[in-house]
């Protein structure tokens, strides 16, 4: 099924609840390793297994990351934040309440700007709050296997207002959001691995009529699926209304195999989470030092970065889009420029030959052997005429393969350009001597054959002869 065009009779409202796994060492409320790919139930302790008598203790780093994100999303930061218990029974949740935040989350009333097409859109953030993840249950025939490695994993939930207008726009927002949390270094943003999850509320209504009946959409494991799920759902809701039907408030799951949303069979029991302040942990009042650290952790956000790249280095929107996608790449780009390279040339190399090599070796730029210094050096060697562009491409591959500086490779392999006229003249004499018939033909006016001679000369020098000099001396000798 291709992209569905939503009936433009209706206005669509989408709000998101995004959960991100914070990149901490330990869990939210205990010292267990925050890593759930390990052998089952190895990263567990009495605390995260909900043993009688245990108490939660707040992870300092997670608290800091919560504030860092809330600050980056322009939220009003809480001067006194505290946790609450959200009460409901769930087989994977050891305490049968989730420690979360409700009345005083780390941040409220923020916003995030992102680019959608040519427009800058602003999405309001309702709140940013810290909480813990549940364990995992694997269904196996007539039993279920429980693994609590993930139980207690630090989560940050970001709740947006229903400001998004379509599946496409939501996808663009999510990609921008993902980029933002990666820039901040608080989450890797991998939706397919579950370190970032997104539930959506969607409703449609006639223009001007406000929000419609809300449907909660779950199980969309990539920005693309979020778009497709929302597109499908908007269309489905429009069909229901067009046929005179009534929408019901429900939770639906995106089925990525069938490309449709399906109603989740839930027992009809009203949720009443009975939130109340967590008595086991005191409130947290950030002091000046903490707030200073939160400021310190702020980075230039992707959208600003992109515009700066365009302005400062005269990159096109597409070029800047490519460079700014990963903070590390943008930093790298600017470092190479600071070392004297020229922007367009750096972009061209990064987007073609370097990218090709990275894809081939399945590496990221910042972790590859091609450091900014090596890259700048490579470009400089070329600029100074020490190597030709063709040789430079070979040297690039060698840098990746041998993890050596370009100058060292050039020296070791004797790749530097021959620019001594006498040396070139000697080689030309040799080639001319070996191709007397061709020389004769050129002298008789067959200029095309001259190219053959140049090729032979370059072959003789392993491509190292300075092309301009070759042309000049050859012309002299043939005239």
């Amino acid at each position, binding site marked *: 099924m291709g992209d569905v065009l939503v009936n433009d009779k209706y206005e669509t409202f989408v709000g998101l609840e995004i959960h991100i796994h914070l990149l901490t060492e330990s869990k939210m409320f205990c010292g267990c390793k925050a890593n759930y790919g390990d052998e089952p139930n190895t990263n567990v302790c009495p605390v995260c297994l909900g043993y009688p008598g245990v108490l939660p203790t707040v992870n300092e780093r997670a608290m800091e990351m919560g504030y860092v994100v809330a600050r980056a999303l322009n939220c009003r930061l809480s001067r006194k934040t505290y946790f609450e218990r959200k009460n409901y*029974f769930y087989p994977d949740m050891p305490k049968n309440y989730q420690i979360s935040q409700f009345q005083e989350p780390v941040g409220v009333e923020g916003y995030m700007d992102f680019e959608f097409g040519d427009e800058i859109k602003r999405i309001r953030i309702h709140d940013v709050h810290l909480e813990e993840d549940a364990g995992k249950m694997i*269904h196996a025939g007539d039993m279920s296997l429980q693994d609590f490695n993930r139980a207690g994993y630090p989560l940050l939930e970001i709740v947006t207002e229903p400001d998004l207008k379509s599946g496409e726009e939501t996808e663009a927002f999510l990609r921008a959001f993902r980029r933002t949390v990666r820039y901040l270094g608080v989450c890797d943003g991998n939706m397919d691995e579950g370190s970032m999850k997104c539930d959506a509320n969607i409703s449609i209504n006639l223009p001007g009529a406000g929000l419609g009946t809300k449907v909660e959409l779950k199980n969309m494991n990539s920005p693309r699926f979020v778009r497709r799920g929302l597109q499908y759902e908007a269309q489905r809701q429009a069909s229901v209304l067009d046929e005179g039907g009534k929408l019901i408030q429900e939770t639906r799951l995106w089925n990525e195999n069938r490309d449709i949303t399906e109603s989740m069979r839930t027992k009809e029991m009203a949720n009443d989470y009975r939130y109340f302040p967590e008595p086991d942990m005191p409130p*947290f009042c950030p002091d000046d030092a903490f707030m200073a650290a939160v400021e310190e952790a702020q980075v230039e956000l992707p959208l600003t970065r992109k515009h700066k790249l365009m302005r400062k280095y005269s990159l096109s929107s597409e070029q800047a889009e490519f460079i700014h996608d990963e903070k590390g790449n943008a930093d790298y780009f600017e470092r190479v420029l600071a070392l004297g390279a020229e922007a367009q040339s750096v972009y061209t190399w990064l987007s073609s030959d370097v990218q090709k090599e990275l894809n081939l070796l399945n590496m990221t730029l910042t972790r590859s052997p091609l450091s900014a210094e090596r890259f700048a050096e490579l470009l400089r060697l070329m600029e100074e005429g020490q190597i030709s562009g063709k040789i430079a491409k070979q040297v690039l591959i060698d840098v990746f393969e041998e993890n050596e500086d370009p100058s060292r490779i050039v020296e070791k392999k004797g790749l530097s350009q021959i620019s001594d006229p006498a040396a070139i003249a000697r080689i030309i004499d040799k080639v001319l001597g070996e191709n007397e018939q061709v020389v004769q033909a050129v002298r008789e006016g067959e200029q095309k054959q001259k190219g053959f001679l140049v090729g032979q000369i370059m072959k003789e020098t392993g491509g190292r002869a300075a092309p301009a000099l070759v042309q000049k001396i050859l012309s002299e000798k043939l005239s």
Partner: protein
Amino acid sequence: MKKEELLTTASLALLELEEGEVERLGEEVARMLDYFEMMTKLDVDGLEPTTHAFQKTNRLRADVLNNNNNNNNTNNSFNRPLIMENGNDVEDDFFVIPNVL
């Protein structure tokens, strides 16, 4: 308190009351709720709720791993074999529970 309310409350608490319990426990719960009613006689305007006995704030735990060898001053060691032993049904380190669909 209506029986309906009692049963809703019981289901939120994941308790399933048998007939006799509905009577006995319902009666006791109702008696206590009646008793609680007297709190409405007191004027509590302007009082902040006390949620913690002593509000010492800002206790945070450093983000370091508990290596369970208790060579520090923190009482965070535990007996892992006992945790597995307490499991009613443990297979390959998974806790196994029934789920007949």
